[in-house]
C-alpha cells in the first residue's frame, strides 16, 4: 500500500493513499470537530465544521471528504479555521430551537458539544423561529424536525446501513428536511423501526419515545441481544435500576451500528409487571408463592422419589436456546450426572436440528460456514426459506447492502412476497414442501450444463457419480410440474448460481422446520459442493438460527444424542473422556428428543419433566396433546421468567432472571462466542438459571463440583476442544470485551476445511399430504418482526405489543374475495388438528391458495394447528406449513 506523508499541525504523519485528512488526524490523536461524519456512513461533507486550512495554498478544506496528498501542510486550528467553524455553528444555532433545557438529548447532543468546545455563547445571528411538529404516533420513534441540522446521518443510516429507504431529503434550501415519501408518519412508511437513525442522530431531532426525560445514564453495559440468532452487540444504558435505552454496542462485529426493532425497543419485557418474582407451588388454590428452600426441597424430593420408583429413564429435561452456553452446559450435566437420565434436549430441536443432521455428514461441519462479512463480498446470494427482515434482520441488512451497494445478485426462493423481494433479481415462488425437488432441479442443470467446479469436485468430494445419476430424474419439466416454478426460471437460477465465482446460500426456518428439512439442507449442501462455493471468502452456507443461543445450546451438548462439542455417545474414546471427567458411566444410545418426551409423557413412561425457559404448549405442534401429556406428569418443574402457558401447568415454578440480570456467553449463528453481561440485579427473588441449576444439584445431594461461572467455563474449555481454541469466551467480571473473534477451528474457508472431503447425498423429493377438499389452503408460519418466537417475551414488551397487537393471518386477495373475507375481519383458521382465531389481513404478498401466520401469536397457539409429524432424521417437528381452511367469524361469537 502506497504511503502518503503530510504535515498535520506541525507533525509529519503518514497514512495509506486514499484516506481522508480527517481519518488521518483521528488516527494521530488530533481532534477535529464533526457533525455529519459517522464512522459507519459514507462521508458527504455536509456540515462543514471539520474545515481545516491547507497552508501552502491557503485553502480551507473539508477534511472528511479530502484525501491526503503528498506534501500537504494542514493546520486544524488556525485562526481562520476557528473563525469559520464558529460562524457555521452559529448559523446552525440560529435556526435551532432554544429547547436544550427540556431536550432529552441533554449533554449527549453533539451540536451542543461542538458549540461549547468552540466557546460559542450567545449567538450573534437573529434566531429563525422553529416550531416543533410531531406527527408520528408510533411507540418507538419521536421526530422533532425543528431540531434537525440537516447532517443527513439518518438518511444515510437508513439507506446505507439498513437499506430500508424509508426517508430521504425532501425539498430544497430552508424547506429541506429528511422525510418519508409524501411526508407521511413513519408508521405509514417503509420504516421498520430499527432505531438506527435515532442512535446516529447528533441532536434531539430523533429520539426514543419511551425514554423521554430519562436523560443521560452513568452506566452502560455492553451485552448480546437475547432475541434472534444474529447475535447483535447491544449496549444497555442503565439508570435507577432500569434499562433506560438500548443502542448498538460500539464496534459490534455482527451488527456494526444497527439493531432491529426488537433489539432496540423490545428490551422492556425485562421490566414487565408480569415477571415472576418468587417460586410458586401448586397448592389447593392453584399456584401459590413459596420460599426457595421449600420449592427446591419439593423438586429434589420429587425427582428422587421418581428415580427410586421408576428409574432415571422416567425423567426428562428440556433446556432452552435462550439460555447461555454455561447454563446449557450445566443443564445437560445436571441431567446426565445428577438425574442420570439420557433424556436431555433443548428448544433448538424445533428450528435448527436439520442443520447439524444435514450438514455434518455432507459439508463436513454441522453449522454455518462463513461469517456475516462474507455475505457482503459475495457475487451471488441465494436465499431460501428465510424471511430475513423478520427472522434475522442483521443478515437481512447485510444481504441488502450486498445487493444495493456492492452489486451482488440475489436469487430468492420463497412463495411469499417479503421486504427482500424488491431486491431480488430472480424470485422463484415454489409450492410449499417442494424445496427438495426445486434444489435437485437446480443441481441437475448445474451438472448437465457443465457449470460444476470439476477441480473441486474431484479433489474434495465423494459420491458425485451417484448424485449425477440420481439427478437425471429431475428434468426441468418434472421439476416445473412439481414445484410450479417455470422451467426457464429454474434454468436461469442454476446458471446464475453455477457461474458465479463467489456465491453464498442462506437458509432459515422455512427449510429447517419442515418435515423434509434435513433432506433440503443436504440438497443445499450438494449445490455448494458441486460449484465449490465453500471454504473460500465470499462463499458458504449460512444456517440462520431462530434463537439467540441455538448454536451454543447444541455446542454445549444439551441434546439426547450428542455430548458437549458434538461428541457422539457411540464414540468410545470421546465418551470415555467425559466419563472420566464426570466420574460415571454414560449410556451409549441416545435419549429422548424434545417431541418424543411429549409422546412418552402421554404414554405415562416419562413421569417428571424439568423444563427450563421453554414453552412447549405454544411452541410444539398439536398443543392440545402437549397440554394433555404435561398434565399426566407426576411432577412438572418449569423455570422461566414469565408464567407461560406451560408454567401454568407446573407443579413447581422457579422464577428465572432475564438476560440483563445475568452473565455468561451466547454463541451466534456464525459460531461467534459473545459476552452476556449483568446490567441489573435479578428482579425480586428471581435467580439466573445457572444458579438455580446448581442449587437444585446441591438440594439433590450431588453437587456439580462447580462454584462459579468461571469454573463452568473452565470445564467447558477442558472438554470442548473448539471452545478452548476460541479465546472468545470472556471471563466473568473481566474488564472490557476480550477477543470476540470466531473460533479459528470453526472457519471452513482459507484451508481450514475440517474434513478432507465433502459428501454428496442423493436426496429425493417425497410428496406430502397437501391440500384436500376439506382443507384447501396451505398455511405457512414464520417469523414476524414485531413479535418473536412464541411471543412470551415480545408480547410482554409494552411497545412491541402496542404496535403489533393482533394475531393475524395473511390472505391473498383472490382467496379473500372468493371466501368473502374483508380486511381486518375476524376469521377462524381450522386444520385437522386444531383451530385458532385471527384477524384477516388481505394482501397481495400472498400467492393464491397460501396463508401466512406469524409463529408468535399473541392470542392463540398457531402451532397447535400442526399435526405432530417429525423429520425422521433430525426429529424436528414439522411446523413450516400445513393444510387448513379459513372460515369467517370469531370462534366464540
Amino acid at each position, binding site marked *: 500500500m502506497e504511503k502518503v506523508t503530510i504535515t498535520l499541525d506541525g507533525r509529519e504523519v503518514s497514512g495509506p493513499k486514499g484516506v481522508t485528512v480527517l481519518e488521518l488526524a483521528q488516527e494521530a490523536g488530533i481532534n477535529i470537530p464533526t457533525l455529519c461524519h459517522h464512522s459507519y456512513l459514507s462521508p458527504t461533507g455536509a456540515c462543514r465544521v471539520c474545515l481545516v486550512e491547507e497552508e501552502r495554498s491557503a485553502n480551507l478544506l473539508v477534511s472528511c471528504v479530502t484525501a491526503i496528498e503528498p506534501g500537504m501542510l494542514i493546520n486544524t486550528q488556525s485562526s481562520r479555521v476557528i473563525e469559520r467553524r464558529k460562524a457555521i455553528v452559529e448559523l446552525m444555532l440560529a435556526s435551532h430551537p432554544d429547547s436544550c433545557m427540556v431536550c432529552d438529548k441533554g449533554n449527549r447532543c453533539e451540536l451542543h458539544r461542538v458549540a461549547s468546545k468552540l466557546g460559542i455563547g450567545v449567538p450573534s445571528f437573529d434566531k429563525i423561529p422553529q416550531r416543533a411538529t410531531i406527527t408520528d404516533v408510533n411507540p418507538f420513534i419521536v421526530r422533532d424536525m425543528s431540531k434537525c441540522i440537516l447532517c443527513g446521518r439518518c438518511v444515510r443510516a437508513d439507506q446505507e446501513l439498513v437499506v430500508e*429507504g424509508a426517508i430521504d431529503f*425532501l*425539498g430544497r434550501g430552508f424547506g429541506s428536511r429528511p422525510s418519508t*415519501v*409524501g411526508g407521511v408518519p413513519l408508521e405509514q412508511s*417503509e420504516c421498520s423501526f430499527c432505531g438506527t437513525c435515532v442512535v446516529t442522530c447528533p441532536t434531539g431531532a430523533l429520539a426514543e419515545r419511551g425514554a423521554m426525560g430519562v436523560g443521560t445514564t452513568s452506566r452502560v453495559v455492553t451485552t448480546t441481544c437475547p432475541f434472534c440468532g444474529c447475535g447483535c452487540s447491544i449496549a444497555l444504558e442503565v439508570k435507577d435500576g432500569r434499562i433506560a435505552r438500548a443502542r448498538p454496542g460500539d464496534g459490534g462485529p455482527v451488527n456494526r451500528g444497527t439493531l432491529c426493532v426488537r433489539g432496540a425497543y423490545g428490551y422492556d419485557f425485562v421490566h414487565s409487571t408480569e415477571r415472576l418474582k418468587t417460586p410458586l407451588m401448586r397448592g389447593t388454590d392453584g399456584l401459590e408463592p413459596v420460599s426457595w428452600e421449600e420449592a427446591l426441597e419439593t423438586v429434589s424430593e420429587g425427582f428422587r422419589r421418581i428415580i427410586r420408583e421408576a428409574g432415571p429413564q422416567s425423567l426428562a429435561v428440556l433446556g432452552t436456546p435462550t439460555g447461555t452456553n454455561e447454563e446449557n452446559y450445566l443443564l445437560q450435566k445436571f441431567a446426565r450426572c445428577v438425574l442420570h437420565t439420557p433424556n436431555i434436549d433443548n428448544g433448538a430441536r424445533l428450528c435448527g436440528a436439520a442443520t447439524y443432521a444435514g450438514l455434518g455428514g455432507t459439508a463436513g461441519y454441522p453449522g454455518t460456514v462463513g461469517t456475516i462479512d462474507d455475505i457482503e463480498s459475495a457475487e451471488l446470494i441465494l436465499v431460501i426459506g428465510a424471511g430475513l427482515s423478520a427472522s434475522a434482520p442483521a443478515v437481512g441488512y447485510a444481504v441488502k447492502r450486498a445487493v444495493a451497494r456492492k452489486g451482488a445478485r440475489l436469487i430468492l426462493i420463497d412463495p411469499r412476497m417479503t421486504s427482500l423481494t424488491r431486491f431480488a433479481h430472480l424470485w422463484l415462488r415454489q409450492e410449499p414442501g417442494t424445496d427438495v425437488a426445486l434444489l435437485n432441479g437446480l443441481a441437475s442443470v448445474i451438472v448437465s450444463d457443465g457449470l460444476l467446479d470439476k477441480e473441486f469436485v474431484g479433489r474434495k468430494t465423494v459420491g458425485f457419480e451417484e448424485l449425477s445419476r440420481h439427478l437425471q430424474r429431475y428434468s426441468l419439466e418434472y421439476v416445473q410440474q412439481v414445484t410450479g416454478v417455470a422451467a426457464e426460471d429454474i434454468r436461469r437460477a442454476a446458471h446464475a448460481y453455477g457461474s458465479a465465482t463467489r456465491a453464498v446460500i442462506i437458509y432459515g426456518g422455512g427449510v429447517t422446520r419442515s418435515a423434509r428439512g434435513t433432506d433440503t439442507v443436504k440438497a443445499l449442501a450438494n449445490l455448494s459442493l458441486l460449484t465449490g462455493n465453500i471454504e473460500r471468502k465470499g462463499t458458504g452456507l449460512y444456517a440462520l438460527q431462530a434463537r439467540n443461543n441455538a448454536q451454543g445450546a447444541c455446542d454445549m451438548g444439551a441434546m439426547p444424542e450428542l455430548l458437549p462439542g458434538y461428541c457422539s455417545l457411540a464414540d468410545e474414546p470421546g465418551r470415555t473422556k467425559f466419563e472420566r471427567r464426570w466420574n460415571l458411566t454414560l449410556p451409549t444410545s441416545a435419549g429422548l428428543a424434545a417431541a418424543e418426551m411429549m409422546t412418552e409423557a402421554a404414554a405415562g413412561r416419562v413421569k417428571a419433566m424439568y423444563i427450563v425457559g421453554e414453552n412447549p404448549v405454544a411452541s410444539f405442534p398439536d398443543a392440545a396433546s402437549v397440554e394433555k401429556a404435561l398434565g399426566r406428569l407426576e411432577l412438572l418443574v418449569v423455570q422461566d421468567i414469565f408464567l407461560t402457558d406451560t408454567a401454568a401447568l407446573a407443579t413447581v415454578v422457579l422464577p428465572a432472571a432475564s438476560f440483563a440480570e445475568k452473565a455468561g456467553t451466547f454463541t451466534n449463528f456464525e459460531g461467534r462466542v459473545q459476552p452476556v453481561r449483568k446490567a441489573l440485579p435479578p428482579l425480586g427473588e428471581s435467580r439466573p438459571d445457572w444458579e438455580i441449576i446448581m442449587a437444585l444439584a446441591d438440594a439433590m445431594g450431588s453437587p456439580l463440583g462447580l462454584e462459579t461461572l468461571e469454573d463452568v467455563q473452565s470445564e467447558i474449555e477442558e472438554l470442548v476442544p473448539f471452545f478452548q481454541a476460541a479465546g472468545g469466551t470472556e471471563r466473568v467480571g473481566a474488564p472490557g470485551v476480550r477477543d470476540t473473534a470466531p473460533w479459528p477451528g470453526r472457519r471452513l474457508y482459507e484451508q481450514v476445511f475440517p474434513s478432507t472431503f465433502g459428501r454428496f447425498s442423493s436426496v429425493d423429493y417425497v410428496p406430502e399430504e397437501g391440500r384436500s377438499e376439506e382443507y384447501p389452503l396451505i398455511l405457512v408460519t414464520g417469523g414476524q418482526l414485531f413479535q418473536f418466537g412464541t411471543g412470551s417475551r415480545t408480547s410482554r414488551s409494552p411497545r412491541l405489543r402496542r404496535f403489533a397487537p393482533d394475531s393475524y393471518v395473511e390472505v391473498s386477495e383472490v382467496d379473500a374475495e372468493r371466501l368473502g373475507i374483508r380486511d381486518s375481519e375476524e376469521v377462524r383458521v381450522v386444520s385437522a388438528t386444531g383451530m385458532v382465531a385471527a384477524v384477516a389481513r388481505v394482501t397481495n404478498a400472498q400467492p393464491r391458495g397460501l396463508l401466512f401466520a406469524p409463529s408468535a401469536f399473541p392470542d392463540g397457539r398457531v402451532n397447535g394447528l400442526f399435526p405432530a409429524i417429525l423429520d425422521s432424521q433430525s426429529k424436528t417437528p414439522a411446523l413450516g406449513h400445513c393444510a387448513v381452511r379459513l372460515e369467517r367469524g370469531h370462534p366464540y361469537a
Partner: protein
Amino acid sequence: MPEAPLRQPPDEAQIEQIIARHRGQRWALIPLLQEIQEAFGYIPPESIRPVAGALGLFPAQVEGVISFYSQLHTEPRGKKVVTVCRGTACHVRGGQTILKLAKQQLGVEEGETTPDLEYTLETVACIGVCALAPNMTVGTTTYGSLNPAKVRRILGSPKEADSKEAASNEGTTGEGNGGA
C-alpha cells in the same frame, strides 16, 4: 383558498409505458420524470413507486429529486401557466401590481392552480424581455408593456386576448423564453 383541484387518477398503463423505456437506467431519472410530466402535465404521486422500482432507487430518493427541482410538480397544473415577472426592470415598472391583479383575476395565490384546472399562477425572476417591462407569460405566449386593463383582458377572457394581443407587436410567441 380555492378548492383543491379535482384530480382524476392517472392511467397506470400509460405510466408503465413511459417507465418501460428507461427500466434499469438509473441515470435516466430526470428525463423519465420529465416525460411523465410531459404526458400528464404533472408527475402523479402514484408514479413515484413504479419509477423507483424500475430504476433500482428508493421511492424516497425519487421524491427527493422531484421536490428539489422547481420545474417538477406532483400536483396537477392548469392548462396554461401564468408566469408574472418579478425581475428588477418589471419591479420598478409595477410588476408587483401586475402580480396582485393576476391573483385577483384568477382567484388563486402564487403557486396555486384554479379549481377548473385552467390556470396555474407562478412568478419568475426574469423573462428576459426587460425592454417591454412589466411582463408576463401565459403558456408560451409572452405579453409585454402590461397595464391593469390589459391584464384583465388577457386573463378575463383568454381566448379573445389570445387572438388580439398575441397578434399585435406587444406579444411574442416562442418556446423556452421563461427564466428558471
